[in-house]
């Protein structure tokens, strides 16, 4: 090979690659509104992105797979956790992770900032990124199912969405309020008491730490059936 050929390889390689890349960049911008729903990219969402940057969330959490790898990926966090859970975690991490082996710093995020952050995460969750991350797809599906046909809910999904922010079930959810299977085997409530307990815990057990749940009596009924079914299964299997 001569020096001239070598120079030709250099210029040909560099320029062809740069040309392809620049064309793809142009096309990326053209298609971005479709993939990210820029019509829903409101001021509130942008404000949320600024909150995300302000507290340097991305150096622990990953989002779209990039970031700190130290804390969960937030791409589909809105579907996985729901608005209320995100708010409680962001504002009171020291309470939510009291028993956790991994801590989140108390950052002093205000209520307004929390709302903006939730809007941001909601918008990020809607980015069409080929169903990634794979493990969160079930939460996305469950969320969409709940929205479209609330009468045909898969009970596990429903319970995890409603209760999984504090309770665990089969290694899923967050262990603040205890494992649902263990609770089911401990409590002595009948169906109606359990429904009352969910809607207003203090009326059944004064002083209990669980906050009132914003669920309809019908939904509470489905959850109650589910929890009571855990109990009988356990007893039979013994």
């Amino acid at each position: 090979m001569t020096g001239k050929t070598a120079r030709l390889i250099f210029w040909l390689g560099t320029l062809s690659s740069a040309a392809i890349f620049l064309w793809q960049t142009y096309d990326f911008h053209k298609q971005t509104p479709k993939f990210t729903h820029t019509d829903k990219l409101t001021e509130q969402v942008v404000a949320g992105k600024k909150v995300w940057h302000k507290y340097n969330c991305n150096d622990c959490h990953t989002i779209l797979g990039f970031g700190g790898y130290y804390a969960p990926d937030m791409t589909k966090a809105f579907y996985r956790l729901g608005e209320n859970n995100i708010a409680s975690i962001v504002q009171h991490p020291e309470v939510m992770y009291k028993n956790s082996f991994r801590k989140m710093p108390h950052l002093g995020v205000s209520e307004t900032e929390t709302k903006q952050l939730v809007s941001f995460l909601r918008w990020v969750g809607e980015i069409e990124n080929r169903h990634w991350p794979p493990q969160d797809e079930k939460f996305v599906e469950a969320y969409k199912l709940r929205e479209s046909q609330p009468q045909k809910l898969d009970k596990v999904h429903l319970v995890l969405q409603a209760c999984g922010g504090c309770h665990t079930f089969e290694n899923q959810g967050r262990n603040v309020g205890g494992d649902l299977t263990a609770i089911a085997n401990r409590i002595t409530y009948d169906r109606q008491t359990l429904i009352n307990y969910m809607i207003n815990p203090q009326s059944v057990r004064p002083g209990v730490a669980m906050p009132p749940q914003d669920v309809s009596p019908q939904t509470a009924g489905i959850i109650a059936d589910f929890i009571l079914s855990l109990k009988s299964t356990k007893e039979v299997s013994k």
Partner: protein
Amino acid sequence: MMLIEYQSQRVSLWYFRLALVLFILQVILGLWLSINYAFTLPQELVNVFPFSTARALHTNLLVAWMLLGFMGGTYYILPPECSRDLFSEKIAYLQLIIFVGAAVTAVVGFLFGWTQGKPLLEIPLPLDWVIVVAALMFIANVAMTIIKAEVRTALQWMLLGGVTFLALMYLFGMPFYQNLNTDYYYWWWVIHLWVEGAWEVVTASIVAYIIMRVTGVDRKVVEKWLYVETGLFLFTGIVGTGHHYYWIGAPDYWIWWGGIFSALEPLPIVLMVVDTWMHVRERKNPIVNPLTWYYIIGLAIYHLVGAGLWGFMHTLPPINYYTHGSQVTVSHGHLAFFGAYALLNLTIFYFAMPRLKGINKYDDRLGKWGFWITTIGMFILGLVFGIAGILQTYLERFLDIGYSTAHLTMMFWFRVAFGVGLVFLAGVVITVYHLFTIRPSNLPAPEPVVAPAADI
């Protein structure tokens, strides 16, 4: 006695010294990060010194010391390449002060939460501009030296092109992008096009220079390979950026272009290994300091394994779907950065620092310990992160177990990582101590056959 040909080459010594100090700091912070994984820290400590801050320090120190090494290395090889002194020593020192001043301000700022909040690009906007000023001074100084030189070499232009490309890409990381996918699109213009583009060009140029000087192989041969390697680096590396665009909400073709081009990315590195090996075989000069050889060969092989093979496996779309954003990335990141750029910088330091001190043949016993401890230590560390990553991928993405539960299994592996990290730190301390206190060997050195660059 001076072994350097031009007095202005001496400016690089301060770049190297500061880089080495930052290197040790970076490793210490890395150990602290592994403690964050391995144990449960109290809430009070997490509140004041969170993982995010420590990580920002760890990665920014990495970038800072490597850039200092590149800049110092460029200042070291430029005068003999151009057969004249640097355009301005004053600019070189002033630029160093500005750069280090910005870095120190950034480090202190991070501790108080002053950040842009973009991972790896945390430095706030005002400091970014200060760094841009320092970079412009650097490029101006390099360009003026080359323009005023009477000799023209391919290596000069390659080096100037590399550092200009590097500085240009930095600008894309500075603005605030409203859309997260656009943010990440241009974020990779800095991160990927640096490490798989601009930095590779600088690396190839510096390696070519050192090989030429150490082996005495003909300039024409070395420069021919430099063109081919750099051409391939840029050909595969530019579109290869696409392997970061699979899951950010971008068009489908990125899967193909990103996948194919990143699969080709090991090619130029293979070429570099072969090329290095051939030059070593055809050398005309006797081996004066074997340690420099250790580093050149180590760099070529480690570069291929860490960046090339690890990267190749990790960026194939069907694999990346599961391993993306897991500890596998951490494993790849450590092996690639150490293998390609830490070893490159250490190669420059071992080439230049003894010469700057007027030492032809040095006592390298400590340095060899440092070399073996750091290279083996980092390799084991990469394997440990890899095991943690494969575990995480399996538990989280195949068995559908929650993130935290999957991460619990990692505590053990990060305790191992902490232990290995301590050994690695010891290796780094030995290396840095050796470089700072390098002294002539009692054994007489064989005379080099080939004359200084001016005569080549």
